[in-house]
Structures are given as structure tokens and as C-alpha cells.
């Protein structure tokens, strides 16, 4: 079945999820996967959806028009075959927490250390917290370490960055305990 990625974003208020999911439900859509959250003052929704009767974006026609009329932006991406299935990962899951005085380039420089080494980031959240005149930047990042990469090696890369960026960074294993 054809799957689509549906992205919806707009000023947060009560009722967005209910309006979106009512349209999906009435239209016969399945929600296979989703992640929705408030970012700043915006509520953002990303959903992987499918509908047995729909195989192209043209067939959506006016399905999401009521959302746009309510000041929500809607974007639909057509997934290629298999794009709805998560890939299989090998390696150890680790979490990297980065926090410190806000400055440009925190996310980029940490991500670059990992990206340059082909380490896959699977989850990333950033928030600006603290007092207005002393903002603190917090980033929580999850990544999969290839089998040949040990946690302490990642720690040593981050040790360098800590000095360069003047932020605190901690790395810890996130292995799920299998019970």
C-alpha cells in the first residue's frame, strides 16, 4: 500500500489533533507512525499515513483544506516503496546530552562530529531554557554507534568539543534492558 508522510504545523491551540485525526478517520486513513509536539508556540505533527483507496497525492484533493482554513500548514510527501518501514540497526544506542550558554553552532558541531563518522542520529531535541538574559541551550541526541565504536571513543570526541564550545557534554549508553 502507498504510504505518505503528512506534516502539519500551526499556532498551538486546543483541538488541532482532534481536527486532524477526525479528517483522517472519516477519510479512511491509517496512522502507521506519528510524532507530534509543541515547538515554540507551534504545534507540529508528523504522521506516516496510508489509505487503501489512495495512491497519489492528487487523490487527496481537498481532504486537508479545512486545516488550511484553520491556519495550519499541510505538506504531503509520497514515500517510495518500503519508506514506511524502519531499517534494522546494529550497534549500541547512546545518548548525548549537551548543555551550556547559548551560542551559534552547538547543534552543528556536535552533529558534524557524528555525521563525519557516519554515525546515525535517531532522535534529537533541543530547547532553550533558563532566564531570558542568561539563556541555556540544551540538546538531547540519540545515536547508534557502529559496533566498532566504543562509548569511550565518543566521549573522547566530545571532550574536545566541550573545550571548543565551552559547554557540558555527557555520553551514556542507552541500551534498552530486555526483560
Amino acid at each position, binding site marked *: 500500500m502507498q504510504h505518505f508522510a503528512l506534516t502539519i504545523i500551526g499556532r498551538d491551540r486546543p483541538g488541532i489533533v482532534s481536527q486532524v485525526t477526525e479528517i483522517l478517520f472519516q477519510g479512511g486513513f491509517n496512522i502507521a507512525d506519528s510524532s507530534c509536539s509543541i515547538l515554540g508556540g507551534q504545534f507540529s505533527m508528523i504522521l506516516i499515513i496510508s489509505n487503501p483507496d489512495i495512491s497519489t497525492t492528487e487523490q487527496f484533493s481537498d481532504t486537508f483544506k479545512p486545516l488550511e482554513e484553520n491556519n495550519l500548514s499541510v505538506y504531503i510527501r509520497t514515500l517510495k516503496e518500503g519508506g514506511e518501514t*524502519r531499517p534494522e540497526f*546494529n550497534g549500541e544506542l547512546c545518548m548525548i546530552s549537551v548543555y551550556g550558554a547559548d551560542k551559534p553552532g552547538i547543534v552543528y558541531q556536535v552533529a558534524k562530529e557524528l555525521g563525519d563518522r557516519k554515525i546515525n542520529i535517531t532522535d534529537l531535541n533541543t530547547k532553550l531554557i533558563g532566564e531570558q538574559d542568561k539563556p541555556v541551550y540544551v540538546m538531547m541526541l540519540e545515536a547508534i554507534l557502529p559496533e566498532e565504536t566504543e562509548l569511550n571513543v565518543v566521549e573522547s570526541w566530545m571532550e574536545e568539543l566541550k573545550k571548543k564550545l565551552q559547554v557540558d557534554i555527557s555520553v551514556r549508553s542507552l541500551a*534498552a*534492558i*530486555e526483560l
Partner: protein
Amino acid sequence: MAVKDVLIYPDPRLKKVCTPIDHFDQSTRELLQNLVDTMIDAGHSVGIAAPQIGDLYRVAVVDVSNSKLGKKQENHGLLQMVNPEIIETEGSQSVREGCMSVPDYTGNVTRSESIVVQFLDQNQQLQVIRCDRFEAIAIQHELDHLDGLLFLDRVSSLKTDLFRRKQK
């Protein structure tokens, strides 16, 4: 004895509150052995509770000594627990848990860091032991099963399980 099938949610038996064992007899010993056999056969498992194999009694087994993480920490090896009760808890730790009965999902759960658990062992002896860290997590997870609680009832955020585990 026997390796049993591990029930998968939404099997309703996983949501039942289990009955204490009033008379410790041969059937109790068999249940303990079935749990041990099933836990070992499941390969990756460090514990299993009776309702996970469809026996709605307050019985569970835990053994963290063979797991990668458990090996590094002090532990009690194989614990066979009848009518277990946590009588003291201390501290808290956050951990990402997965469960054989809820495949493909893991979640961050907050558990006590150290517990004192009381139970009848396989020889009907009353044991009162202190367990820490991973072993404490495993016991809390298994004892939740006896009250019809899954880690989904405790979780603060859910993540897709990124790793394919051995499923029976």
C-alpha cells in the same frame, strides 16, 4: 520441565492481578521450572513472570547474571520467587526497558535504584534480600506483571525499538 509460549499483549491475561500461592506444592515447583526454562529459551530474557506464560499466580524468576549489563554488577544469580513483595525502596533510576510481551517498543521508565524484596524461594524458604541497579529493575519489572502492569503503564516516553530482538 517445559518451555512455554510467551504471551504477547493484547492477551487479556497480561492485565490480570495474580493470585498468591497458598499451598506450595509440586505444581508450584513445576511452574518455577517452566519459568526458568522459558526464560533461558528466550535467550535475551533476564526474567519472566508467571502471567507471561498464562499462569495467573504470584510467581516470577529473575537472573541477570548472564546478561551483558548484569554481569558487571553484583547480583544474586537465579532468583526463583513465590509471592514476592517489595518491602523497601530507595533512590530512583531511569532506564529504557523493553518487554517480551510488548515487542517492538521500548520506553523510559523510572524505577527504584535499590529494593528489598521478600519471597519464598524454590525450597519454600523465606528470603529477604537487597537488590540494586539492574537486578532491582528486573525484579520491579517482573513484579509489575503480577499486578497486571506492563512497562507501558509506567513509561514517560515511548520509542520504537530500533533493534530487532530474538522473538520466539
